[in-house]
């Protein structure tokens, strides 16, 4: 199938009659995924959104349920979002990040109905990366500019059109009700050629990183790595795989709602106990936690690293604390493997 670029807006308009459509939209100096109300709002001419699309399934601020106390007693109303959604033009790394998040929200111990209901109702239409950015290192983490992990369909930009590759039954369902032309031999060849030429120039050597992190929690390397870190939430909130949250009540008297908000391991409040004790009292322990969670604990739990190499933390950190440099230091460190 094919979408001519000048017919893209009309195509998205068609989808909107059946789904909530989320697409990259220009906002200030960047793009972000937003629910669109007209196909013309979408711009697929983007490198990577400022904020990852994880928020469509796991919003930064999410009302779980509301409650009220009246004369008839307590009333609780759960807020499960069952709307059918399409995320249109998601990058392969971001799609892969959702597959990683599935481990967290759907496992032997927990099934999160808020996330899972959205996930089941959401179709992911990917957009391959013809020109990966200098900060992209997806191939080092098993992804790639045209990787289809997690996607229901993939678009390949061949100049004035997108060649559509259907990947799943859900993808087929999405495109079946539309009137798109079929891709010809030449279009398919053009798509294959684009895939050939796209190169990810940045690589990160992860060999042995997990083994080093396994050995010495108290390695002196942690004394220095965090020194310049400010302890903000830029790297975690812009990371597509970070998923820690905090639950609060937003209420006046006995009426209100329970809300789930993104949280960040880099904040002092993150592990502060009610007693006042904090097991991660300084930036050193917090920074170590961020690295450990991504490159050790997630691997211990789910057998995969919690990074897709999107480069957002690199581009956005206010002090240029580059995760690639941190991984290189750990990798090359003297961290003892014999302990």
């Amino acid at each position, binding site marked *: 199938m094919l979408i001519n670029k000048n017919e893209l807006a009309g195509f998205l308009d068609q989808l909107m009659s059946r789904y909530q459509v989320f697409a990259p939209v220009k906002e200030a100096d960047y793009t972000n995924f937003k629910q669109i109300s007209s196909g013309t709002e979408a711009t697929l001419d983007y490198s990577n959104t400022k904020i990852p699309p994880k928020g469509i399934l796991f919003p930064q*601020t999410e009302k779980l349920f509301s409650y009220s106390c009246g004369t008839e007693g307590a009333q609780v109303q759960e807020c499960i979002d069952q709307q059918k959604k399409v995320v249109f033009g998601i990058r392969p790394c971001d799609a892969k990040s959702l597959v990683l998040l599935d481990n967290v929200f759907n496992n032997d111990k927990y099934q999160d109905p808020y996330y899972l209901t959205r996930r089941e109702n959401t179709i992911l239409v990917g957009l391959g990366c013809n020109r990966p950015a200098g900060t992209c290192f997806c191939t080092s983490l098993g992804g790639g500019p045209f990787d289809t992990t997690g996607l229901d369909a993939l678009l390949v930009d061949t100049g004035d059109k997108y060649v559509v590759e259907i990947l799943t039954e859900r993808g087929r369902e999405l495109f079946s009700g539309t009137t798109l032309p079929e891709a010809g031999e030449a279009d398919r060849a053009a798509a294959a050629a684009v895939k050939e030429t796209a190169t990810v120039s940045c690589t990160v050597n992860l060999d042995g990183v997990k083994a080093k992190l396994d050995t010495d929690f108290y390695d002196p390397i942690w004394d220095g790595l965090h020194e310049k870190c*400010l302890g903000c939430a830029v790297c975690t909130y812009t990371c597509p795989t970070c998923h820690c949250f905090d639950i609060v009540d937003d209420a006046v008297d006995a009426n209100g709602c329970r809300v789930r908000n993104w949280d960040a391991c880099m904040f002092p409040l993150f592990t502060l106990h009610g007693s006042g004790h904090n097991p991660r009292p300084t930036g050193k322990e917090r920074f170590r936690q961020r690295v450990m969670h991504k490159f050790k604990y997630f691997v211990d739990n789910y057998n995969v690293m919690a990074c897709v190499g999107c480069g957002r933390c690199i581009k956005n950190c206010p002090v240029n604390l580059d995760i690639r440099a941190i991984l290189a230091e750990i990798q090359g460190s003297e961290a003892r493997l014999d302990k």
Partner: protein
Amino acid sequence: MPELAGAIQEAARKLLEEKKVDVVIGFAPGTLPLRSTPCFVHRPEDAAGLTWNRSCENNLANYLRKRTDKVAVVAKGCDSRSIIELIKENQINRENLVIIGVPCAGMIDRKKVDRRLAGKELLAAEESGDSIVLKGDGFTETIPVNELLHDSCLSCRHPNPALYDLLVGELLPEKGGDDFADVAAFEAKAPAERRAILTEEFSRCIRCYACRQACPMCYCEECFVDCSTPQWIGKSSDARDNMLFQAVRVLHSAGRCADCGACERACPMGLSLRNLTRKMVKDVQELFGYEAGANLEDKPALADFKAEDPQPFLIEE
């Protein structure tokens, strides 16, 4: 500016060799074009890793509070003004601090660079006299530095360090007073319009607190946004709460904010935070004649009282 970098390396090496300090905090080359990164040098042989150029934008005063070791810091004009305020607030022990002052010709705003490149990716950049040469896949653009400097650098009146122990490079000519034309223009708008602008702006805030963390003057043991009993502000990201957070943050820096722009530089969402901080700077100057960081002698505005201080909120005139 390789001469300045060389002089900084030399000064740092000497201070460490002679054991005058335990650590030198300066800048090292970063991992992205037009990006230097804060750097902590503990050994004399590592001093060669220090650099100086137009991308040393972070305010290093932020790393100096409550340290118990002996520290040397590379300080441009704004860093030094924050250091002065922190000394007055007893956050820095002057005896343990060596200030390597560097006159600053302005730092580059990568957001302005990105705007000029309109989506093209910057892969390399070079300083060439008063211009910056930007390079990427299939393009080279030469742009005058002035068009790429941070707004805070364009309006900065004090490029020279206001306090230093060693000076690297030559002092630059001081500039005249600040006319606060930007603040006046915003003040001139109708309240509803100001509200609309701020609401739009702060609907994009993600409450990452990078602004707070990057500000050398934001150091409360417990920030009011982190309190839970009582809870002063909603924890969720919501335009009104985001605005309240910023308004309180800015008010808390009254008479202390040196207009360094570190908060705005750190904000990943590109919000114009100086629109608010400069209003405060202007008001403190106009009402109390105090300029944060100008010198060590003036008593901080919040610690001083003069009979002639305007107090229209207390006494009907």
